[in-house]
């Protein structure tokens, strides 16, 4: 078994997808299906952002495909006038994989939720990220099971009281960004459903990234987990909780930029008052660093209690993609086959054949 060099990826995630000169509008991406999420659901805001953002890409609408699994968020494809598939629970990344490998001319999106992607579909998610499939995964995280009416999810906080955990849940949650980074993701971003500007910027960069992009979207379920992200939306201390990453800039936040992220004694990162540690101690953000250490530490700046919540781009690095590599092998083999003059008849015949002659006619 020998390792061979894989081709470097084409520079952009959408470079092989045909574009259009026609001006598109959000309305062009709106299907005739009535949207049936609950009133107040965060999914509406995300849908509006995506419909508003897609025209920017100038792609031919017919070359965009949204694939989803099962759950509230997985109804998403029905509401977009692109090609779409509402598949089965947890398996959307597998379907997107077959599509991305065989159709380089498509922009392939996966819409999934915390249950779909991190419970039943956890295996497929990590492998899609590891392989660096050229797909963009939107992970709607509302920390609850909505469609099955209110059980706790793999991102619910410990002690969550739900229909299935009346005495509180006892399992520790996943941190989706940490998980994605551990699964060798080349692009990881996070945004809040209601932050249209921030979400659109993350989507823009995710779509442009060649390889697997994971975007975690904090999204509110008003029925079963109402207000779960409210501390990030309103109140006096929002600015002390939310850190928006800006590449190349020192990581500062707070109403007056009075907080900064600095190295901790244990080798990670922690939040400090700049007045206490000095400007020079503040870490400068590097999204394109090959070493994921800074990104990982940022994903764990506080527990998932939202004390400090980082949004923006956690990681953006170039690495060969599975689909480009697989297609390159097929193309190389086709060229060799053509040069050799291989054909089906020769394949079927193989190397060792023998002939059976017709029976000789009896001589009189």
């Amino acid at each position, binding site marked *: 078994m020998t390792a061979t060099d894989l081709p470097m990826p084409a520079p952009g995630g959408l470079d092989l997808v045909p574009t259009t000169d026609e001006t598109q509008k959000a309305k062009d991406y709106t*299907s005739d*299906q009535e949207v049936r999420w609950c009133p107040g659901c965060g999914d509406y805001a995300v849908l509006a952002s995506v419909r508003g953002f897609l025209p920017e890409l100038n792609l*031919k*609408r*017919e*070359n965009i*495909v949204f*694939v989803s699994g*099962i759950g509230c968020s997985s109804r998403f*494809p*029905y509401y977009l*006038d*692109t*090609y*779409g*598939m*509402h*598949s*089965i629970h947890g*398996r959307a*990344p*597998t*379907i*997107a*994989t*077959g*599509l*991305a*490998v*065989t*159709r380089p*001319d*498509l922009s392939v999106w996966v819409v999934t939720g915390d249950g779909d992607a991190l419970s039943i579909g956890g*295996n*497929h998610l990590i*492998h899609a990220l590891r392989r660096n499939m050229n797909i963009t995964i939107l992970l709607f995280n509302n920390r609850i099971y909505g469609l099955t009416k209110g059980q706790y999810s793999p991102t619910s906080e410990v002690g969550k009281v739900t229909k299935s955990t009346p005495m509180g849940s006892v399992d520790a949650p996943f941190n989706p960004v940490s998980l994605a980074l551990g699964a060798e993701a080349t692009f990881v971003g996070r945004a809040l459903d209601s932050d249209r500007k921030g979400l659109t910027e993350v989507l823009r960069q995710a779509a442009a990234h060649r390889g697997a992009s994971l975007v975690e979207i904090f999204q509110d379920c008003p029925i079963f987990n109402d207000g779960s992200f409210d501390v990030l939306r309103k109140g006096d201390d929002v600015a002390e909780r939310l850190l928006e990453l800006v590449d190349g800039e020192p990581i500062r936040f707070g109403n007056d930029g009075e907080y900064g992220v600095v190295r901790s004694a244990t080798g990670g990162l922690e939040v400090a008052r700049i007045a206490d540690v000095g400007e020079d101690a503040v870490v400068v953000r590097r999204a394109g660093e090959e070493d994921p250490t800074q990104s990982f530490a940022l994903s764990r700046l506080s527990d998932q209690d939202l004390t400090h919540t980082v949004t923006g781009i956690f990681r953006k690095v170039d690495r060969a993609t599975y689909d480009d590599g*697989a*297609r390159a*092998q*097929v193309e*190389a*083999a*086709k060229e060799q*086959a*053509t040069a050799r003059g291989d*054909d*089906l*008849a020769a*394949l*079927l*015949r*193989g190397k*060792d*054949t*023998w*002939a*059976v*002659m*017709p*029976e000789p006619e009896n001589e009189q």
Partner: protein
Amino acid sequence: MSTDTAVGPAGREVRQTHRVVIRFAGDSGDGMQLTGDRFTSEAAAFGNDLATLPNFPAEIRAPAGTLPGVSSFQLHFADYDILTPGDRPDVLVAMNPAALKANIEDLPHGGMLIVNTDEFTKRNLAKVGYEANPLEDDSLEPYTVHQVAMATLTRGALEPTGMSKKDAERAKNMFALGLLSWMYHRGTDATEQFLREKFAKKPDLAEANILAFRAGWNYGETTESFAVTYEVAPARLAEGTYRQITGNLALAYGVVAAGQQSGLPLFLGTYPITPASDVLHELSKHKGFGVTTFQAEDEIAGIGAALGASFGGALGVTSTSGPGVALKSETIGLAVALELPLLILDVQRGGPSTGLPTKTEQADLLQAMYGRNGEAPVPIIAPQSPSDCFEAALEASRIALAYRTPVFVLSDGSIANGSEPWRVPDVDDLPDLSVTFATEPNAPDGSGEFWPYLRDADTLARPWAIPGTAGLEHRIGGLEKADGRGTISYDPDNHDRMVRLRQAKIDGIPVPDITVDDPHGDAEVLVIGWGSSYGPIGAACRRVRAAGMSVAQAHLRHLNPMPANLGDVLRSYRRVVVPEMNLGQLAMLLRARFLVDAHSYTKVAGLPFQAEELAGVLTDAVKGDLPA
């Protein structure tokens, strides 16, 4: 087994014989599969008809010299068309005491036994529970025994190479092959050429194996112990060009051909599993034919990716065995709902659960037929022999593409690994599988919309509109769809209609009538089987007829939908016998569907039926004594 006798060179007797069954048996590490394969190639190149039965443990290297570690390869070759690898060997080659103990009961009295005496040490005998050395007592008296110190002789032949004793002894399987090749008048050139190619990167090993092979050949020629040699003339098969092929290879070639004949990219999404992995291995070599192979993280991802590829306009294929089908079931159901083409190649093995990975069984029929939630009909095709896997893959592709449906191919371990001669088809005669993608809106109301579930009146298939087609953007999924428009629908009447439409689509697939082989036309007993049991059933029928009785044989290739004339055929015989390597799955289907008193004869021993046992069952049936 002999018919004519002549005296050959050096005064040796040469017997002409019509057919021979040879079984090579040894330790898993002894290279018995390679030896058998090579002898098979010699028989094929000579023009014999042949059938093989490899039989090996699931462990890669079970403890050496033990009964669980025994690996064997049985080859049946003949000067006429044969149907099975043979029930019992005429010649047994036993490389150690374990191989002897595991196989000697199958050797008929009077059969030839060739034993490698070097392995019959006290320790090896004790390992398998021999209290006395069977080579030294009278327990082998009923057989014609040839005791050959194969390891010692091989070591001696390889002495000039300077190889270590241990390494030299490893070539003893080639010594055995040389001896048998001499005994059956096989040439040496092809095998020597094969060894040079196989060990091209290690010329020393190639030479060592060739030396051992020649030593075996010369041993037969120069010692006096073998008084008789045998000749089996080429078989009088139908005119054409032949090659030897295994079921898994034929399945892979059928899939490549389906890609070529449809003009579609071919995408295999799969996960390694015994005994289907060779389909992946083979297809991964044929990227030059536009074949993409994807080794997924699990069975579910394999079929998911295949279905995704089909959505994009490729021919999606997944290969697996029974445990994998269980994992794929939900996605197969999705494919039924999406109505997209998909091939599911199930190479069956012994179950339930992990079961017997390397042994054969036909117990996935009901899983393929009904193993999904809801009413989810899927066409099923079963190849009847190794080479037939090629045609089965093409036929399954034809149905999948024309009717936009997942289709099962039910192969099994015995035909997957077994081999036989295959008359290489003329590529010009292969079916045209080209498809037409939808390109225009189709709404009957003139709205200019595209309705993804508006069916073809003839086939009931829905249009296949692939992403990238402007104006046909649409969404499909596992939720019930409105008939025609394809939007989500929870309407009770619509669901009832859609369930019936999906069923009607599959039921309406035209499949050829089943043919009955009833040479005298007066049989009262019909024996009907499916899949790999074709050979043993056919061989059993020949025996029954040779004994002067009449029996009719029919074999099902299309298990869903079944041939339209099947009910009439079943009802036209007084007694119906259904042999199966399960506990009566086809018999149950036949009884349920046609209300016929089909009698099941079943066996689930991990090995194919033997012609002799089935002949007994059929003889009893002819006499009115049906299996319980």
